[in-house]
Structure formats: C-alpha cells, structure tokens
C-alpha cells in the first residue's frame, strides 16, 4: 500500500512538472502583448518597454520559465495585470468560493446518484428505473450552462424561490474569512442566518453543476449493481440466507462502488472546469469567473495559475481516488 502511494506520488510530481511546461508554453506562444496591455491604451513604446522589463517579459523564455517555477515554490503565481494584485492573493479569495460550490455539487451528486443507481438496478425495468434512465441519459448530454439558465428562468424569475446569482445578498455582511467557504465560516462563527442564506444561494448553481455528474454516477452505479447482483457470490449469499439489505448493501454495493468511485473522482475533477460556465451563468465570484475575465483581458499570469490549479486539482483527485481504490479493493493493493 505504502509502496503504491509512493509510486503514485512520484508519478504525480512528474505530471505536475509537465503541466507547468505546457501551461507556460501555451501562454507564452499565444498572440497578444501583455506588456502593452498592462501599460494601458495610451502608453508610449518606452512605457511598454519599461513594463516589459518590470514584469521580466524581455528575458529568454527558458529563463522566464525557471523564474516562474521558482516563484511558484515561493507561492508567487505572478501578478494579474487586470486586478493589479498578486494572482495568489486573488486565488485565496476566489478559490474557496469555487471549492465550496464544487464540494456541494459532488456531495449532491453522490448522495442522490448512488441510491438512485441502486434502486434502479434492484427494480430493473420498473417505473423508477425507466424514469431514472431517461433523466440520466439526457443529463449526460445536456449542456450545463443551458440547464443553469433554465433553472434561473423557472425557479428564480418565474417562481422566485431562489436568488438569481451571487453567493450572498449584497446587503449581507459575509462571515469572517476563515476557510473562505461561506457556509463553513458562518457555522464556525455561529451565524446560522448567514449559513442558511449562503446555502440558499448555493442550491441552483450546485444542482446545475452537479447534474452531468449525477447522471453519470447513476448510470455507472446502476450498470455495476446489475452486474454484481448477478454474480455467484451474491447468489451464494442468498443461499446462505443473508438478509436482502445486507445482500444489496454489503455484497453488491460495496463491490459495485469501485467503478462508481472512479467516475466520481473523474467527475469531481471535471467539475472544476465546469465552474467556468456555471460561475458566469450564476455570477458566482470563483476561479472560473476569474479565469474568464483574465482570458478576455489577455491577462496570462492568472490564466496560467488557474490552469495550473485545475490541473493539479485533477491530479490530486485522481491520486486520492487511487488511494481509496487501494483501501477498498484488495486486488489493487498489491500492484501499483
């Protein structure tokens, strides 16, 4: 097990380095002069050159790369030309907002998806199964932003049940930043009113973001459950007289959960990318919205930083899933 974790960690470091090279190259090969942009529309060539020197854009690419990587190890992700603040500082504000949204979304997808998959499999071809199959098939194909817009139209504008966007009412004082996640901070500072308000703002974006994940979790879990339920060890458990609940929950679900775990991990990684769309639909001040602004402003240090964080996030979730897999499945433990 330790051997496996060690091997995976080294592999992850290598991938991270590769990611650094790729993000750096793409943003430096891309057209657009960041120095000119930073200097402003009325700047003279001299001023632009000065900015270029200041930001180090005049140095050779390789040198810039090493400065960049060295900076990352010191927590320096560069400076945003657009917000004029260090990117690391910006991310400290925006990342928790995104993390909070993603965590609620994946939680919702798991809590709803796994039981639906089980019910669907156990009552195969029943009416629940048919409804679940139709909804989940469409869920995999539905564009997330479209779903977000529809939810807004219906539940915010027509029914007025939920706010249109944002994390809190403009008049509400956000809770003291401890983790940066409003619901957590509100609980920690015992401001329950703010907690429920933040939760209320969370509902629509979280549902929209979680829907494709929910759909694929249901589909995978259902298929795996159907397969596992037909295996001989489950039949044997029945022949031994095991209760129906234990047969489904312990014998079948525990084994069916392995592939489901893999899809959960994958979806958890993708979700962070999906926030770019959802955050712009719901005006959610997170990393996605930040990256979108940076891209439109050719502000490439934030773009690099966000890409790096998304990539690292994806690797980390996969790494964690690998470890969970090892813990859950004795067959994986031996081989790394």
């Amino acid at each position, binding site marked *: 097990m330790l051997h496996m974790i060690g091997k995976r960690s080294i592999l992850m470091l290598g991938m991270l380095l590769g990611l650094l090279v790729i993000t750096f190259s793409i943003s430096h090969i891309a057209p657009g002069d960041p120095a000119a942009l930073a200097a402003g529309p009325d700047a003279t060539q001299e001023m632009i050159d000065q900015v270029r020197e200041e930001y180090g854009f005049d140095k050779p690419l390789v040198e810039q790369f090493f400065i960049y990587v060295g900076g990352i190890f010191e927590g320096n992700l560069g400076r945003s030309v657009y917000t004029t603040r260090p990117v690391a500082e910006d991310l400290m504000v925006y990342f928790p907002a995104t993390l909070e949204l993603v965590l609620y979304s994946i939680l919702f997808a798991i809590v709803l998806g796994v039981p639906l998959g089980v019910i669907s499999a156990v009552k195969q071809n029943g009416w629940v199964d048919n409804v679940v199959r139709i909804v989940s098939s469409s869920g995999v194909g539905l564009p997330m932003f479209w779903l977000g817009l529809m939810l807004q139209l219906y539940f915010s504008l027509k029914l007025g049940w939920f706010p249109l966007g944002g994390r809190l009412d403009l008049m509400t004082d956000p809770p003291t930043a401890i983790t940066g996640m409003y619901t957590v901070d509100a609980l920690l500072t015992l401001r329950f009113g703010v907690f429920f308000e933040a939760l209320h703002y969370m509902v629509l974006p979280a549902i929209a973001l979680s829907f494709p994940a929910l759909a694929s979790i249901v589909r995978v879990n259902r298929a795996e459950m159907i397969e596992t339920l037909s*295996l*001989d*060890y489950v*039949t*044997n*458990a*029945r*022949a*031994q*007289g*095991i209760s129906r609940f234990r047969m489904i929950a312990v*014998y079948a679900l*525990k*084994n069916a959960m392995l592939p489901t775990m893999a899809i959960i991990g994958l979806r958890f990684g993708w979700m962070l990318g999906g926030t770019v769309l959802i955050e712009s639909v719901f005006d959610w001040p997170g990393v996605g919205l930040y990256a979108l602004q940076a891209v439109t402003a050719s502000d490439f240090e934030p773009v690099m930083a966000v890409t790096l964080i998304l990539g690292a996030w994806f690797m980390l979730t996969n790494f964690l899933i690998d470890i969970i897999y090892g813990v*859950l*499945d*004795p*067959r994986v433990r031996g081989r790394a």
Partner: protein
Amino acid sequence: MLETHDLTVGFPVRAEGKKAVLTAVNKVNLHIEKGDALGLVGESGSGKSTVGRTILHLNKSTGGSVIFDGQDITRLNSADEKVLRRRAQMVFQDPHSALNPRMTIMRSVAEPLILHTKLRGAELREKVGTLLEIVGLQKQFLYRYPHELSGGQKQRVCIARAIALNPELLVLDEPTSALDVSVQAQILEFLKSIQKELDLTYLFISHNLAVIRYVCNRVAVMYLGQIVEQGETEEVFNNPKHPYTRALLEAVPLPEPGQPRRGKPLIGDIPSPLNLPTGCFFNNRCEKAMAGVCDKAPVPNFTVENGRRVRCLLYDPASAPQVEAAAV
C-alpha cells in the same frame, strides 16, 4: 429425502415484442434418497442449473412442489426458509465469481456461521480453521483474499463455506467445469470422500458424463427442461434406453484417434424453450422417431425394470406391438 413433483419453472420474457413464458424446467420429478449422489446431466440450456437453484429457493417455481424431508419448501415462511438455508447449500461452477473479492477467506467461510450460529471470536476462527483443514488448505490462507488463491484452492474454500453449517444436501452446480483438468480430479476425489465422511447428499449438476459416472450413484438426464431418463448410474451408462441418452453417451470423444465413431452424431440444435415441439421434445432429432406417433401427444414417463424411468414411447407397454411393427 428430497423429491420434486412436477416441478416447473417459467421465466417471463419478451420475444419479438410479445410477452412469452420461457419454460426452463418442465414437470420435473426427481427423487433423492439420503446419502445419494444424483447426477443431473444435460446440454447447456437444458434447465439443469435452474432445477438446482429452484430447489434451493433461489428461483421461484411456477408449478409443482419440492418436498424436503416431508415438507413442501416451495411455499415457506421466512423462519422455515432460514432452517432450509442451514440444511441445504450450494457450490458454484466458477469459484472466481463465487467468492466476494473484498472478503478474506476467513470472512467468506465465517459468513454462514455468523448468520446461523452463535460462534464468535476465537471459537469462530478455530471453526473456520478446522473447515479449511477438512478441505485441505493450510491456516496461512485464512487472511488471504480470493485473488491470491488458485482456482482449485478457491473451489476448496467454496466447499468449506458450503459445509460450514453441516448441511444435509449440497447442490453442486458444475463444481469442476471451470478448473484445470489436473485439479478437477483432486476436487472430485475430495468431494467423493467428504460425502461419505460428512454423510452428505449430493445433487450433482454437470454436462460431463465421466464426472457424473465417477461421483454419482444415480443419474437423471435432462433435455429441454424435462427428465428423459433416470436410474442407477451404471445401468444407465451401460444400457442407455432413451435415444437421447444413447446419443449423449456416443458423443463422448474417444481417447484413441482414428477409432470409428459409435453410432451417428446428433443432428440439429436443441429447440427453443419458447417454442416447444409437440409430442416428444426430442422427436425432431431422434433417429428412432416415428412419424405420426412421436410428434402427436406429450410423452409420459414409463417405468422399465427396478426404478428406471424413461420418457420414450419405445418403452410404452401399451404400444409395444405397434413399436415393434414400426421398428421392423
């Protein structure tokens, strides 16, 4: 000890958009005495596994009854069912899928004990150790996982699990078909020896005639959900009465290459259980089929000498003269 009366199992299916019933088991009458090893033999799709599973209450029967020690077990309440679970256990064909991959050997074998007895802790471990010893596995396997064992070892674990509660009846569904030939022999030898030692009754399901002949004292031949012939193993093998039994025995490959085949090989395929033939189910493939006789009415079982039952009009005492005439 175990009898089935007209046991019938049908599965609802959809064929060409229409609902239909697939009759997998069609009025099967079996009779197993305590200490017997009854072999159930037939082609794939003949319904032999379904018989085994229905006897253990893993499938619902749609007709007839299963009498286990005088009690009809097709309609049981849950308390009685739990008693049945103790008394009858099953061993599956594929030991790789018959063990939960997430449970240690210890846990897999202990499950029935935890479920039905009060054994716990050290006592339980000791009991599992003893069971492993009986099936010829060392204690070092206790905390291994199934994927660390070979096929033969896994099948031994399955047998240990099946005999954990001292059952009276074991349903063995092709217990050696998935194993290497060298391992098959060991497992068969072992099954034979524990049958005597533990006073077990076997329902041994197999398509392999040699295996049945080695382990079983009685045999029932299934075709398309029906028993077409049953009797003492040696008698059936030495003197098969039903044309299907004869064809099966003749189809066994001979060890010497170049030897002439005995008889003609069977032609055609087993008919679909969704579309059963009229008359004798075997009439379209039978070399002795009598046109206008065999394809008319369903064929009952006829008893020929000491307990031998054959489902074939050739053995109908009433029509014997007619048959003789047809044979000439």
